[in-house]
């Protein structure tokens, strides 16, 4: 599915300094019953965000009006567990375009890249700096520069570079998805398939 192009994103960020945030927290299984990609943002972090009667849990960061923005900053090993792309959809649908962490689970990272959410992996030290900067001033802005592969804490100018492979970077910059690419090489695929008996 095509998505908006990603170039340079400047935004405040929402801090979630918890490690091993798994996709069951990002979106619990009972909200995976849809047959269309709609409305997942409402249930992002459902059980951390709402009580069982549907009232908001005031202490949870998404319910704290001080914090807002298009960037979610999470602790180490963000997105572990289930392969549900619904987790990445929920992040996107809620309004985030970028997730920053010191480590991402594999499938979640891939799902994000496939739907237009940029996963930015930084060093544990830089992650700590971001958390501290936001703690000191919730209006702290981060700049995510995809062409230069650079993340900057604007107030202090502190920055770090991040990795992304050239192919995926091109896709994000242009809003392309893998299927466009694969459909273009279908002849090669069919040729390969003929040679494999399974």
């Amino acid at each position, binding site marked *: *599915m095509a998505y908006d192009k990603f170039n340079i994103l400047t935004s405040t960020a929402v801090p979630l*300094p*918890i*490690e*091993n945030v*798994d996709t*069951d*927290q990002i979106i*619990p*299984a*009972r909200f*995976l*019953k*849809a*047959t*269309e*990609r709609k409305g997942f943002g409402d249930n992002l972090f459902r*059980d951390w965000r709402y009580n*069982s009667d549907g009232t908001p849990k005031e202490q949870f960061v998404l319910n704290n009006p001080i914090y807002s923005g298009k960037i979610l900053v999470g*602790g*180490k*090993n963000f997105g*572990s*567990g*289930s*392969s*549900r*792309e*619904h987790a*990445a959809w929920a992040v996107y649908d809620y309004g985030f375009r970028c997730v920053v962490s010191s*480590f*991402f*689970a*594999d*499938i979640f990272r*891939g*799902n994000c890249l*496939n*739907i237009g959410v940029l996963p930015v992996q930084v060093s544990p030290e830089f992650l700590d700096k971001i958390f501290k900067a936001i703690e000191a001033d919730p209006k702290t802005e981060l700049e995510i520069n995809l062409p230069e592969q650079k993340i900057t804490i604007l107030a202090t100018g502190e920055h770090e570079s991040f990795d992304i*492979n*050239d*192919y*995926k970077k091109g896709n994000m910059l242009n809003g392309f*998805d*893998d*299927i466009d*690419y*694969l*459909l273009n*090489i*279908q002849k*090669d*695929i069919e040729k*390969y*398939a003929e040679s*494999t*008996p*399974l």
Partner: protein
Amino acid sequence: MSKTLFDKVWDSHVVKHIENGPDVLFIDRHLVHEVTSPVAFLGLKNRGIKVLYPERTFATADHNTPTRNQHLPVKDPLSANQLKALEENANAHNIPYWGLGHKKNGIVHVIGPENGITLPGATIVCGDSHTSTHGAFGAIAFGIGTSEVEMVLSTQCIMQPKPKSLRINVNGELSEAVTPKDVALFIISKLSTSGATGYFAEYAGDVFKNMSMEGRMTVCNLSIEMGARGGMIAPDETTFEYIKGREYTPKGKDWDAAMEYWSTLYSDDDAEFDKEVTFDASEIEPMITFGTNPGMGIGISKDIPMAESIDGSPATYKKSLEYMNYNEGEAMVGKPIDFVFLGSCTNGRIEDFRAFASIIKGKKKADNVTAWLVPGSHKVEEAIKEEGILDILTEAGFELREPGCSACLAMNDDKIPAGKYAVSTSNRNFEGRQGPGARTLLASPLVAAAAAVTGKVTDPRELMREEVLA
């Protein structure tokens, strides 16, 4: 050049390599279920394309299905709608579909091997992270997201950078009551839930050589819980014996040709791995988890570790114990429990029911325990009946449900209530995984059985010794 088992299978499936980018990897078998596929089929519809190779695609309903009264219409309208969507999509694209009530229906990772869909040397994907299960056969098998499901439906390929290689050796002999589940939970407790992220694992050594296919599936199933995309075991006589004669397994000349290829599937002696770890089987005892990720496991006789002794953030650790309402330094043995869940793609196979029955035979289910025993498939259910296991279960006060993922992810009505403790043979103890507020203790079928008859966390070796004395 010498190659690992993983290299051999991966490299032979690369249709195209993109410089500083992913490989285009051909997928031999694509397993589809109701939860992660509807948006992918919608994508095909929007592009106006059909499934490229329906004969390489198999669909079943398992995640969002009831485990009682499957012959009746599904009550929850959202679930019913999702199941209907799968059936319609499968029919529209000529994909074999084994829906509710079909004799081949069951959990996708149980029915793949049962029907011979899972074969050595194959690439297998499914929109489910526990697809790693199929690695037990020497296949490269891993979970994918819905965008990738759409890719495979439309082009039979996905685009993935080649992961790094990791070999996990466990040598020696396993002790009494130590099952494949314990081996896996032990490894995860040592490596942590992110210790193998970016890697594809190969399991090697005496313990896996001597393990049954069911056991190997349990181990490979849990590869994702240490962050690895998948894990695999070189195929051997045990593997060939298991797959021979199954419905989709090659026959006659095709079998001979396949055997020739399969016999080349092992890591060369001097193959290099990016990372290698080795454990001694005698170190492993029956395991149980005490926290909210599968890496938070200990030997059942041990105490809950102190925050300062663990790697990672103490705040996250304490949040986890708070959720479980446990304290550092407490013993796990003797902790009261409320529910027992036997089932899932991790431990829902016939061997798991045999193990469970071996402990509860001649005993009674504890009054304070609600037990949900859910076979992984109708074939497993049949075997439970044929082998007389159902009689043992019934005599002990247990009942058997119908196949499905059930309380492993609690999408259906099988939800553990808030605050209750469940000893579960499934794969994830995340907060709310088995129902909002539910508390999960992951363990083997033996530990689950011991809990089911005593009503608390119990070392199964104690019951086994009583048995011998009696």
